[in-house]
Every structure is written in C-alpha cells, then in structure tokens.
C-alpha cells in the first residue's frame, strides 16, 4: 500500500523544504503587488494621454515617447527632427554615472586593498570607518556636501585664508559639484564589495607570482585584479546604477541647469511639468538601461562561474 503513493506523506527533505511555497508566498505577494504590478502599470501609463494637472486620460497615445525622441516644432507642423533635449539629459546622466564609477574605483580599489591587507585588529577599525557613512542618511550627506562647497562655505573660506586661492571657487550648481556629490554618495558601495573580494584572496598567489619573477605591477595586473574582478564589477554596478537615477545630488548640488534623469522624472510628477505619461516613459527608458547593465552583469557572472 505504502509502496504505491508514499510521496504524499510530506516528510521529504530537510525540515522546512515542504513549506517552501508557504514561506515564500508573503514576499512574492508583497513585491508582486506593490512593485511588479506598479511597474507594469507604469508601462501602461507611458502609453496613455496626459491630463494637465497630473494624472492621465485612459486613451492610448505614443505622445510621451514621441515627445522624448522627436522634435516636431512648437506647433507640431515642422519637419520631424531628433529632439536632443531629453536624450542629452540621458547622455549627461550616463556620463556622470560613468565618471562617478571611475573615480570611486580609482579611490575605492586602493582603499579596499589597503584595508584588506591590514592586520585583523586595525582592519576592523578601517572597515568600521568606511561602513559608517554608508549608514548615514544620504540626504544629510548631500546637504553636508552642499554646505561645505558653497561659494561662501567653509572650503572656500579656508582656501582663501590659506592663500591658495584669491577668490572663491564656484562649484555649486555646476556639473563638477554633481560629480562630487555622486562620488561622495556612492563611494562606500565601491569599497565594500572589493574589500570582500580582496579579503578572500589567497595571498600565497602573490608570493607565487613574485617567486616566478613578476614585479609588483605585473602581479597586480595579472594575478590580483583578475582574482578580485567579481568584487570590482559588483562595486561598479552598485555605484553606476544608483548614480544613473540619482535625484538628490543633481537636485541639491547641480541646480536647474545640470538636470539628470532623476530630476527630469521628478519634475513630471512633483514639479511644474505635470506630465505623467512622459514621466512614466522616461522611467521606462531608465529602467531598460539599468536592466541592460544588470543583464550584462548576470551574463558575466554566469560565465565566470562556469
């Protein structure tokens, strides 16, 4: 009898494997209803007609994408050209995020390496010091940066007093300030994954490389960096993705002239523009960009694992 259908007894595997679906259901439901459905709805909204005081009219329209990519003149009767305004904002965002990633890597890699090669006692201190800013409110950090680099802020005052400069450096409301803000916001995101990778690295390999006549730089390039590459890539993604959609740094440090995607989108919902379908379309384009980056990452991961 038991030989026929013993599989219904529910004793298989470890203690909780039989409860898999019930254990996962709350997370699936919460994220499914409150994130996946909203994103799909956002896709739908990007194809609807805008209502002037925010919101939408339920009529199919590709006006949002049309407005994003094409310039039909003020009254819509001129020959169609490519509309560069929004594309430029996207390009600027990608460049800013790319630069932020580059600078974070430039400082973050040596820092992570330095921390990982400290003796355990001081290593904990360094790690603690790098972790604290990661936990500090991003808004407060951005506001602090704004305070520091204002034309009449402490940085300019000190530099003037020290005689390094004769008049204040104008940083605020420039692309440089935005870059500084992004770099500062996401630097810990670069350090931590690289640290984790270097910490697992087997330093006997460095000794082996030196034993085989490699010099310091060759060892770094040929042995260490390939080994910690997954950490470097993870760090770059963790800096690039949030930088791309950042709102606070460009808004507080960049001002109106240095718009990035985040501000453009925010403007459509909270600001004066009030064009929901256009905001939804811009969000979809941003999301697609991020998905491309993540897919590239996932493919890379899969390849390095096999």
């Amino acid at each position, binding site marked *: 009898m038991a030989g026929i259908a013993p599989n219904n007894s529910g004793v298989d595997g*470890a*203690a*909780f*494997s039989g409860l*898999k679906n019930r*254990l*996962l259901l*709350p*997370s699936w439901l*919460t*994220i499914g209803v*409150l*994130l*996946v459905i*909203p*994103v799909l*709805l*956002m896709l739908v*909204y990007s194809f609807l007609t805008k209502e002037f005081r925010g*919101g939408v009219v339920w009529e199919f329209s590709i006006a949002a994408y049309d407005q994003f990519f094409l310039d039909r003149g003020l009254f819509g009767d001129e020959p169609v050209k490519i509309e560069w305004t929004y594309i430029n904002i996207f390009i600027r965002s990608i460049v800013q995020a790319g630069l932020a990633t580059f600078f974070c890597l430039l*400082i*973050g890699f*040596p*820092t992570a*390496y*330095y921390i990982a090669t400290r003796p355990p006692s001081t290593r904990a201190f360094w790690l*603690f010091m*790098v*972790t604290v*800013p990661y936990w*500090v*409110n*991003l*808004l407060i950090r951005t*506001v*602090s940066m*704004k*305070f520091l680099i204002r034309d009449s*802020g*402490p940085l300019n005052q000190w530099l003037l007093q020290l005689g390094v400069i004769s008049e204040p450096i104008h940083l605020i409301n420039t692309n440089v300030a935005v870059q500084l803000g992004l770099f*500062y916001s996401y*630097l*810990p995101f670069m350090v931590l994954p690289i640290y984790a990778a270097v910490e697992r690295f087997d330093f006997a390999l*460095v000794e082996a490389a030196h034993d085989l006549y490699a010099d310091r730089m060759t060892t770094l390039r040929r042995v260490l960096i390939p080994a910690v590459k997954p950490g470097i890539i993870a760090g770059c993604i963790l800096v690039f993705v*949030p930088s*791309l*959609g950042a*709102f606070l740094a460009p808004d*507080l440090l960049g001002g109106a002239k240095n718009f990035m*995607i*985040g501000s453009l*989108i*925010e403007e459509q919902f*909270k600001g004066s523009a009030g064009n929901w379908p256009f*905001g*939804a379309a811009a*969000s979809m384009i*941003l999301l697609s960009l*991020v998905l491309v980056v*993540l897919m590239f990452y996932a493919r890379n991961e899969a390849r390095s694992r096999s």
Partner: protein
Amino acid sequence: MSAAGERIKSYPGFGLLAATCLVLLYAPLLVVMVYSFNDSPSITRWGGFSLTWYVDVFTGVEAGKFKVAAWNSITIALMATVASTLIATSAAIGMTRSGQWRGKSASFALINLPIMVPEIVTAVATLIFFSAIGFKTGYLSILLAHIVFCIPFAYLPIAARLQGVSSSYEEAAIDLYASRWQAFRFVLLPILLPGIISGALLAFIVSLDDFLITNFVKGAGVETLPTAIFGAVKQGIKPNIMAISTLMLLVSILFVTVSWWIGRIGEKADAPVSE
C-alpha cells in the same frame, strides 16, 4: 606573517589613498557637525560654541513640524522593519532550505527586485499604482512602500547567515520529536538571531533614510524627517538643519555600532570548534 610577506603585499600610495578616502567621506559630515554648534545665526561666520541650535530644534518655531515628521519617520520605520523582517525571514528560510527547483533564481530576483530597480522608478511606479487604484496617499501608502524596499535589505543578511547554518540543526530537532514550529522557535531562530537583528537594523535605517520614494507617495501634509529636511533645505541651509543632521548622524553611528557589536557576537558563537 613575515616582514617580507608584508612587503610584497603592500603597494606604495595605497595607504595615502585610503586615508584620502576617509577624509573625503568624513570632511563634510564633520564640518556640519562643527557648525551645528555655531553661536552665530549666520551659517558662514563662526561665532563661538553654543547649543542654541539644538535648543531651537526642540523648542523653536519649526520644532512642531520636525517633531511630527520625526514621529512619522520612526513609527513608519518600526512598522516597516517588523513587517519586512518577518517577510524576509520567511523568504530566506524558503529559499535556502528548499534545494534546487525551477524558478528559484527568478524567485531570488523577485525578492531582490526592490534594490535592483532604481529608486526613482520605484517611486514613480508606486505613485502611479496608488493613484490608479484610488488609494489615498498618506501615512499608510508610505508604510506600504517602505515595507517593499526594506525586504531585500532584511533578506540579505538573514539569508547569508542561514547559508552558513547547516540544515542538520533543524533535522536534529525534528529527529528529537520537535514539530516544525518548535524546530524553528527553539533551534533555528536562536541560531539565526544575529542575522535577523542585522537585517532588521538595516531595514530600519533604510526606511529612516528614504527620501525619494517617500516624497512621491507621501501625499499632501504628511512629512517624514527626510522630506521635512529637504523642504527646509530648499529654502536654504539654516543652522537648525545642521543640528538635526548631527543628531541623525549620531543615531546612524549608534546603529552601526550596535550592528557591528552583534555581528561580532555572532562570529564568536560560530568560532570553529577546538579539537
């Protein structure tokens, strides 16, 4: 490790860059901290040490606004933490204790979706969702949105800890006549606790920290601390903002220290068995 071994590991200049990194990370925070004790109402000139602005935070004209905002922030963060930690713990057990199955990586991606989708996109999508279903934006909509993006932050440390805990502990409990609930309550939960606490701390701080999503779904009249600070900063940085910032900074440092300490205890408990 021998001196020679240390020498080939180190690269000249890396120490300097690491120090620069710390200076860059801390300089703005320290400057704001120092200026929060400035006696002068001008934020530019130093007028001597004073606690004026801290008193102002609690009793000044804007005190009422910030108190309500702080209360909203804390209650939302607490509730979002409890809900997301429960959901994340359950999900982590479901994921790490179920072997291989079709759709497992999709499930992993779904649970971590909130950290993969850019915050601004989540904000837009959530606002559209609430608007489309006619859900009145306000306190409750903020809470729901916070629960969602806190889930992966709570999930990751819990799942990491679970992966390091052999499932034979639960099996041993079941083998000794415990029900599944008893196996969880008396065996798995105490072992998991450090992971659950760091997950909860992370969720709490992330909720407390959030500006962008909150700003989209808060509706009129409901403020959290970050949205209130942002609104105030838009009118220019005033010294009371620096005092509030310093206070929040201290809260963050307290949290890191606590989570650090708990992590240490967890590590000690896991210390390899001496033969």
